């Protein structure tokens, strides 16, 4: 064993020796640094100590991604770092997802999301899907190059609260209007919240194509989704109360 290896071994942190609060702090750092294996390990340790899957998700993973999101918005972190953090979070989600499904944890809402036809770019869409899932939404990710028929089938099958569409190219972003216009023609537009996002889009474009909201980044998408779902459900409750 070389001196360097000895040094490394001595400094390697054993996550299982940390008390809960320090372990969670360490997981924030590990998420920030995109450490995939450590996040999986930390998630498992917290579960083994009796934490519920919901608590691990909200207090360790989502809170940690919140720090990443703020630093991304403030220009301290850039897309590669955020991607790396999201990739690390995935290792925790892979452990939590089946447990959350089994325990029937209440979903905040449901979203169908996909990159529009003609476009294969999915970095932003994947970040949104990951952050939405982290925030407690059930996410059905259709993938890339999605034609209007596939969006409509998914709406029919999954009955989500939200339809999310993403595009990176100026040439493909007008397809969002094709999807929304088709929804109008079929009389189903108002059954869903429609959110759009992607680098070349802006708020005016979102309004022009008839979306309910334009999401500048993944953190905005989560906030907007929560707000609009709450408004819609509140509206529904108010209608029932009046009736």
């Amino acid at each position, binding site marked *: 064993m070389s001196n360097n290896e000895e040094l490394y071994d001595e400094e390697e942190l054993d996550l299982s020796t940390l008390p809960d609060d320090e372990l969670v702090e360490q997981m924030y750092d590990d998420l920030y640094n995109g450490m995939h294996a450590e996040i999986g390990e930390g998630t498992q340790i917290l579960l083994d100590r009796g934490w519920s899957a919901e608590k691990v998700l909200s207090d360790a993973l989502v809170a940690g991604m919140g720090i990443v999101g703020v630093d991304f918005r403030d220009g301290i972190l850039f897309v590669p770092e955020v991607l*790396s953090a999201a990739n690390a979070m995935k290792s925790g989600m892979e452990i939590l997802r089946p447990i959350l499904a089994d325990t029937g944890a209440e979903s905040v809402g449901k979203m169908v999301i996909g990159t529009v036809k003609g476009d*294969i770019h999915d970095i932003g869409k994947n970040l949104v899907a990951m952050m939405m899932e982290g925030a407690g939404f059930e996410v059905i990710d259709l993938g890339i190059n999605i034609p209007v028929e596939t969006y409509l089938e998914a709406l029919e099958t999954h009955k989500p609260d939200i339809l999310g569409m993403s595009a990176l190219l100026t040439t493909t972003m007008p397809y969002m209007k094709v999807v929304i216009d088709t929804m109008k023609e079929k009389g189903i537009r108002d059954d869903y919240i429609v959110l759009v996002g992607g680098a070349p889009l802006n708020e005016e474009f979102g309004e022009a194509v008839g979306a309910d909201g334009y999401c500048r980044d993944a953190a905005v998408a989560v906030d907007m989704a929560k707000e609009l779902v709450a408004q819609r459900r509140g509206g529904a409750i108010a209608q029932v109360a009046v009736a």
Partner: protein
Amino acid sequence: MPPSVLSSRHSVTDHLERQATDAAPGAVIITCSALLREIQALIKANGWTHLEVVTISAELHNRPERIPDAVQVLITAARRKGQLVFVAYGDCGTGGRLDALLEREGVERIPGAHCYQFYSGSEQFKQFEEAELGTFYLTDFLVRHFDRLVIRGLGLDRKPELEPLVFGHYRKLLYLAQSEDQELQQRAQAAAQRLGLSYAYHYTGSGELGRSLQRFNRQLRVGSS
């Protein structure tokens, strides 16, 4: 506008001789540094010494929402000097915001969404897209600066594990060449190999960029006659 956004030099990344156009340029081309080398070559070949060229850093393509403001600054400066203006940009991810500015200012740009499209021509580019949606395009400029703009720009040197997330849906690298340069072709092939993509080559020359500048020059002649 941070001063770093606008290049104070005529070239940001290329080492070219500055054209002797500062005497009394009657017109200015506002462009991206990614097109500078080709525009300088067209100016030299055609003797368009009455054209000044000012550039905005190609790195602004990572923040396309800032391109219209950068162009606006240069249009205002040119108008102050009494110059006629042409903008050698595509939409370049500005989502129509650049066009809205140019319409207000009464300035023309190269038709097309981005340089891949106007170098190859809209019809040809459509065929490329239909043949393989997962095509990653390089121009001469991007071949020259592949490591800096693609590998380091996307953080793949620091985080190689991100490569499947960024390039997972790409199948082919297509080098749209503005010059017939063996060395650049070898570098483009190496880039394809580096990303694990198949390689194809298509010579475009200056494409719509050259034709747009010719049209702008004809307008200048009509205007001055």
